Structure formats: structure tokens, C-alpha cells
């Protein structure tokens, strides 16, 4: 922010799952830079989460939070209300990615991916919506799906399915909120391959990390992997009042992957 200029999300309170790293971390930073009154960094990684909250200062709140635990969501909302008095924005960024074709995938693998990526988003939307619609004049939910939610590949069967669930759940929530007259919009972003700690772990496990990185880049028309701040910018846009007439959309941030 420059002196005297209102931020793009001035005064909003934001809850970011997976807020300690990657797209979630950069979203938290972007919201605070644009005037958010509070950002909840919700994550299972306490070391990163507490360090980030300490760095970001008074407007940041660390919350140890497992998105797959219903009780965590039930406890989180009163905690947010107590600290900030309201909630305007939910960013469901937490998620996992593991490869599997239909033949490789075990049932347990399938259930694991859907439990984190789909159930976690379902629970977040369900519990946060109750607080947002009660306390916000201009609420927004942004779900982080994936290009795989729109354009699956053979080697990410369970992951692609879990991310498609997020995209369609997003539309259903958008329509519900509108039908009920809630001032809450719901949209999805669809990142392509993004250079996050999740990708770093993927690269570290690869036989040839450089070749793997090149392979990720090569499937995108821009011939590069994205940066988490580029996804955070899309999330910020959708959360801001600039997107007041936008609900139920899928916004790819993917270097052209979904177009080609």
C-alpha cells in the first residue's frame, strides 16, 4: 500500500487454509498488503505457521487447523469471531497432490486425496459460510482447485477427480448463496504447475528433478511453471469488491494450459 491509498481488500477479515506455505502463504501476504484487517493463517504446519504469523504482525492470527477435522472447523469459527469480530473471506488453499493412474491407485489413496482435497473444502465452505453470511456485507469464498479439475491427465486420476469436485461444489455454493440472497460470492481458481513447497517435494522425489521441472513447464503454452504470488493475485481479485458481479466461475492461472 502507498500512503493514503485504500487497499483493495481494506478492512476485510480473511481465513486462509494452507496459509503457512505456497499459494496460501502468498495469499495471506497479498491480503495484508492490500489492507485486510485480519488474516487467519490456518495450517497443520505449526513451525511455518507460527513463524509466518510472527513475521506478518498484529493483523495475522496463527491457528493450528486440520481441514479434514470437522471439530477443528467448529472450533475455528468462534475463535475468528472472538479475535476479529467477523469473517469476510475464506480461501481454501490447503490440499495435497499425489500421482496415480486408475490402475495404480489404491482405494486408500483415492479416499485420502478426496478426504483432504474435497472433504476439506466442503467442511470449510460449510462452516465458514455460516459466519460469513452472518457477519459480512460483502463476502467471498475462493476455492483453490487445479487445472486438473478442468482438464485431467491419466497419471493423476484421484487428484483430478478431487479437484473437479471442488470446481462443481464451488458453482453449487455460488448458486445457493445467490438464491438465499446472501452477500457471498463463491469462485474457484485453477492453478497449473506452480513452484510451491508442494512442487519442491515432488521434484525432490523425482529421479531427475531438473528434467521433471522442464517437463512441468513444457506442458504449458507459456513454457514455464507459475509462481504462487500469481495465483494469490487472482485470489485477491476474486475476493475484492472488484469482482462484485463475478460468482460461480473457474479462473485458470495456468500459462494457457486449459486453452491448448
Amino acid at each position: 500500500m502507498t500512503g493514503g491509498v485504500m487497499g483493495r481488500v481494506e478492512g476485510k477479515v480473511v481465513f486462509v487454509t494452507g496459509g503457512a506455505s505456497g499459494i496460501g502463504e502468498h495469499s495471506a501476504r497479498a491480503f495484508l498488503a492490500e489492507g485486510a484487517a485480519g488474516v487467519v493463517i490456518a495450517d497443520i504446519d505449526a513451525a511455518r505457521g507460527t513463524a509466518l504469523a510472527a513475521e506478518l504482525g498484529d493483523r495475522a492470527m496463527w491457528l493450528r487447523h486440520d481441514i479434514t477435522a470437522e471439530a477443528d472447523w467448529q472450533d475455528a469459527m468462534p475463535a475468528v469471531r472472538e479475535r476479529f469480530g467477523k469473517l469476510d473471506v475464506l480461501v481454501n488453499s490447503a490440499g495435497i497432490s499425489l500421482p496415480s493412474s486408475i490402475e495404480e491407485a489404491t482405494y486408500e489413496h483415492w479416499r485420502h486425496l478426496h478426504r483432504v482435497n474435497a472433504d476439506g473444502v466442503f467442511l470449510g465452505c460449510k462452516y465458514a459460510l455460516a459466519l460469513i453470511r452472518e457477519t459480512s456485507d460483502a463476502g467471498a469464498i475462493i476455492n483453490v482447485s487445479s487445472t486438473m479439475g478442468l482438464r485431467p491427465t491419466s497419471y493423476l486420476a484421484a487428484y483430478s477427480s478431487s479437484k473437479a469436485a471442488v470446481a462443481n461444489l464451488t458453482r453449487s455454493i455460488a448458486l445457493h448463496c445467490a438464491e438465499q440472497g446472501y452477500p457471498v460470492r463463491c469462485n474457484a481458481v485453477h492453478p497449473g504447475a506452480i513452484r510451491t513447497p508442494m512442487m519442491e517435494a515432488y521434484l525432490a522425489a523425482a529421479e531427475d528433478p531438473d528434467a521433471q521441472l522442464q517437463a512441468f513447464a513444457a506442458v504449458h503454452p507459456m513454457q514455464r511453471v507459475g509462481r504462487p504470488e500469481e495465483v494469490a493475485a487472482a485470489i485477491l481479485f476474486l475476493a475484492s469488491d472488484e469482482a462484485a458481479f463475478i460468482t460461480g466461475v473457474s479462473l485458470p492461472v495456468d500459462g494457457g494450459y486449459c486453452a491448448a
Partner: protein
Amino acid sequence: MSTGRLADKICVVTGATSGLGRAAARRMAGEGAIIVGTGRNAEQGARTVSLISETGGQAEFWRQDVTAETDWQALVEHCTTRYGRIDVLVNNAGGFFVRPLEETPLEDFQWLWRVNVESVFLGTRAALQVMAAQAEGGSIINMSSLAGQVGLDQASAYCASKAAVTQFSRAAAVEAAALNARVRVNSLNPGVILTEMITGSYGDSEELQQYFAKDNALKMMGLPEHIADAVVYLAADESRHVTGIALSVDGGRGADFRDK
């Protein structure tokens, strides 16, 4: 040096003489852009320029028929001579008519195709030649429509022309990325927006406005400023990893059927 999300960017906006084009030009200028607004109506073009100047922005009007190839050559020559570059092109100019299919003469269909599709082809081609050679690349934003996704009653020619714009933009994005990964092409799908295009065809009665305001999930009347905010996002560097997308700004009108 100006400040803002589009500081000092040279932004060409076609159809800047009214409606979405004027609103986009004003909003972009407010973010520090230098506007070259084009159109056929010099009086209304001057009005847009003065609206921008009054609030401290920079703009000029350039007379152009977007269906004339020579006019595009002249515009590009003007911009490159005066500013040395083109950073953003908003292909906004377009036409519309409502008429039963069996009463639509071929000439009317062809007119709409020239105004809505050939203009976008000519503009994108002209801008691509300039932007591909620029280290910073550029952003091309083509105005498609909700009508490119759904069938609107008695608007078959319009729906066909806008579907063409969406698909042309995707293909152009793939090609542009190969030439210069910093050149982006995206399209926008406005829903029903209160502009002269709508009121000119359907009338501007309060009743009709209320009808249109109810024809989307959010039950809001779409305004030119809603589209202008999305134009700013796609024009700004913050969307540098976004290309080949079709972003709907339609109050959720398309949320339940959108085919990705």
C-alpha cells in the same frame, strides 16, 4: 511517472465512445494507464477523453473503424510513433441486434460478423505484431459475451459471433505464447450489462431493467464498471500467468451450465 496497477501502460481501447469501452478506459486511466480510445464518433470520443482528463488521467481519442484493415495499420503506426509501444489492447467495439432468424437477411449476419469477429481478428493480429517484439510483451483482452456460451432468443447471429471471439482468443493465446511468453490473450464474457447496446435494442424502461437485474443468480443489474474491473485485472502484470481464459462477469448467470 504515474502510479497504479497500470502505471504508464499504453492501453488501446476500441469502442471507447460509450458503454463498456468508456468505463474500461476510465478505470484503466485511474490505474495510471495512458489511454488511446478509438471509435467512429469523434464527439463521444472527446467526451471520454474529457471525463478522463477531469480526474487527472491521460487519454486521447483516435478515430477508427475497427472493421477497416487500413485503420488498424494507421492506429498501430500512431501508437508506435507517439509512444513507442502498445502494452494493452481491449477489443471492445462490437454490434448487436435482436431479430427472428427467419427474418434475418444474410447482409445483417455478415455485418455482425465483420463488426464482432473480423474486428477482433484484425486488432489481435495488429497488436500481436507489436507485442511479440516487446520484451515486456503485452495483454490483449477480447470482449466476448455470455451469449457466446448460451443460446439467446432471436440473437443467433450475435451468439455465433461471440462464440467465435472466445475460441479465436484461446487459439491466439496459444500462438502468442509461442512467439513471446509475455504476450497474453484472454476474453471476457459479460452477462447483461446496462449499456446503450442493451437499451438501444430492448428499451430502457424501469420494468425492463428490473427484468434484466433478475436474470442472473445475484439478482443485480450488471454495470459497465463491473466489466472494467475485470479488464484492469487482465491488463495488469498481476495476471501475467493468465492466458487463454474466458472470464465470465455475469452475476452467476452461467454458473450452472458452463462447459469447460
